């Protein structure tokens, strides 16, 4: 098992004819993801590496039974692309685009909520259930199928953690990048709930960072609803206040959203918090060892 995506997931790529879209479509196919369709308005009828291209997501869904989407569309049009996906009945939408205006996401969140779709991102490396399905831009080969669920606001920092795990022969059930923006789709709480119910997942890792209160909300949720062990690292203990640290959402505003507050909230909820990012793999190894004994 895994969460959200697996070997049965059928992916439509929105923006398949763009540079990024094409490059990563090929990477996903190579990993074994079932990319069944592409969408670029005006280019319907073409085929790219044998994948049929449609003018709209609705046509793609009718023609191929796609049930998940990957969005590689420029920021100005990405919000519209997410809404199109939701309106066409896609249940898992992965939006890789970085730079979508925050107020566009306000509209998107309400729109997809009404249609029962789940959004991953935007500004995310995507989601991968190792050995089964990858929808995103992460390097597939660093992952290994297994029992640790990962939820992260970051890209390369997640690769770092995955690499530490894989080198210790600790596999992952599903790794989800929730995105680095101020407003994102699925959050820690939604994903912790899914991992808690997933029989394959034995433990979870949360990779957080400064800004917002998503980690604090996760802490509250874990205290009441999560029985599996959770390990957390929060980036940005040394980040200055009032500065946006690369991600649109990574900012300490009005003294709120510091790494220290988040670490305390998680620690109080019984989460094992690691302060040294190089030790996440070792800590998880210890947790799994204790679980077995």
């Amino acid at each position: 098992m895994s969460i959200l995506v697996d070997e049965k997931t059928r992916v439509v790529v929105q923006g398949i004819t763009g540079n990024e879209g094409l490059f990563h479509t090929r990477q996903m196919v190579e990993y074994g993801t079932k990319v069944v369709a592409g969408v670029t308005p005006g280019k319907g009828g073409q085929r790219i590496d044998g994948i049929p291209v449609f003018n709209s997501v609705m046509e793609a869904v009718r023609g191929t039974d796609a049930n998940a989407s990957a969005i590689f569309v420029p920021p100005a049009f990405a919000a519209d692309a997410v809404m199109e996906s939701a309106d066409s009945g896609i249940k898992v939408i992965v939006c890789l685009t970085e730079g979508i205006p925050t107020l566009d996401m306000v509209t998107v969140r309400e729109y997809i909520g009404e249609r029962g779709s789940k959004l991953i991102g935007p500004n995310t490396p995507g989601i991968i259930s190792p050995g089964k399905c990858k929808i995103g831009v992460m390097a597939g080969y660093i992952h290994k199928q297994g029992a640790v669920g990962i939820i992260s606001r970051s890209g390369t920092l997640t690769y770092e953690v995955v690499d530490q795990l894989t080198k210790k022969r600790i596999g992952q059930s599903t790794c989800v990048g929730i995105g680095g923006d101020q407003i994102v789709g699925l959050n820690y709480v939604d994903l912790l709930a899914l991992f808690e119910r997933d029989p394959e997942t034995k433990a979870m890792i949360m990779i957080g960072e400064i800004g917002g209160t998503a980690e604090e909300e996760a802490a509250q949720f874990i205290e009441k609803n999560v029985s599996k062990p959770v390990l957390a690292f929060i980036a940005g203990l040394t980040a200055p206040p009032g500065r946006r640290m690369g991600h649109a959402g990574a900012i300490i505003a009005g003294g709120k959203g510091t790494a220290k507050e988040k670490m305390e909230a998680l620690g109080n909820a019984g989460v094992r918090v690691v302060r040294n990012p190089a030790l996440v793999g070792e800590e998880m190894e210890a947790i799994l060892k204790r679980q077995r004994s």
Partner: protein
Amino acid sequence: MKIHEYQAKGILKDYGVPVPKGRVAETHEEARAIAGEIGGRPVVVKAQIHAGGRGKGGGVQVVHSPEEAGQAAQKILGMTLITHQTGPAGRIVRKVLVEEGVDVKEELYLGVVIDRSKGCPVVMASREGGVEIEKVAAESPEKIVKEWIDPSAGFRPFQANKIGYELGLEPGQVGKMRSILFGLYKAFYEKDCLLAEINPLVLTRAGEFIALDAKMNFDDNGLFRHKDIASLRDLNEEAPLEVEASKYNLNYIKLDGNVGCMVNGAGLAMATMDIIKVVGAEPANFLDVGGGATTEMVKNGFKILMSDPGVKVVFINIFGGILRCDTLAKGVTEAVREVKVNVPVVVRLEGTNVEEGRRILNESGLNFAVAIGMKEGAEKVAEALKR
């Protein structure tokens, strides 16, 4: 993106928010002339920098004649203003806002921000104006009235009324407040703000509201559709190295430590700063070269990093996914050849094409300390600092 008070007031005025009569001046002669035009007394001369706390730092003066306004402007223009928001280095004042003095009966607070967990804008108001709203929120949260905005319905009149009555205003004042709230919200929404704030909103003895100070922060991701707002950017308010970095699409933030770092990805960049601290050193900067960095970007990033004289050791920490390790290694070796580098450089590479990347570094003939893993990288940084 931040803008100046006078620019924010200009925008809000266009949205029907009452602001004091006045204009911005860059010389004391101009300031004097503007005070003359205003005619009334007193007149306020306010330093324009992108930071709060200007009054306490001596950047705001109340004067009673055009001559005095000129003198006050002469004093303020060119001064280095240090406030709790500028940091110890302060900011040089290049412009002053000269405006009519307002007769203050009461100071209120109005603001609109994005509520990240609810995923929508929230309009806030309080009778505790003139102080930072975070302070009010921490000490007496019950004094802040909040209304969350439904994205499809927008900000509704009943919500504005509710705010007015919950603040305890008189019926006549509620109507005036409503129009200011609508102006503020509309400006926030139409201009893609992340924050729009009037603090204080003054209630005068004559019973009128007027925006005495205003602050607007814009969503960088929304600037592409607001050329008018983008043109308000003031490069003088940004650190020169950060401006330089932004030209190359690099994300650089200068800090005060001794370890310069170059990393791909914002989260890993912050984590790298954190691990530098774990081994007892201090990061000199945040530098994210991004997932799709080219050899040229890496080269420019390295140059910017090295132009900070505080840097005693460089730590390059790359996890190649889209950015391949060989691209990075090429950029770094080219940069080191071009820039005179007289500090140790620790390089940690992992991910796509890592062997090729390490080979390029080892065969470059340059003196890199190549580390395997983030832990070893940080340890090598600490060792290099001790030497």
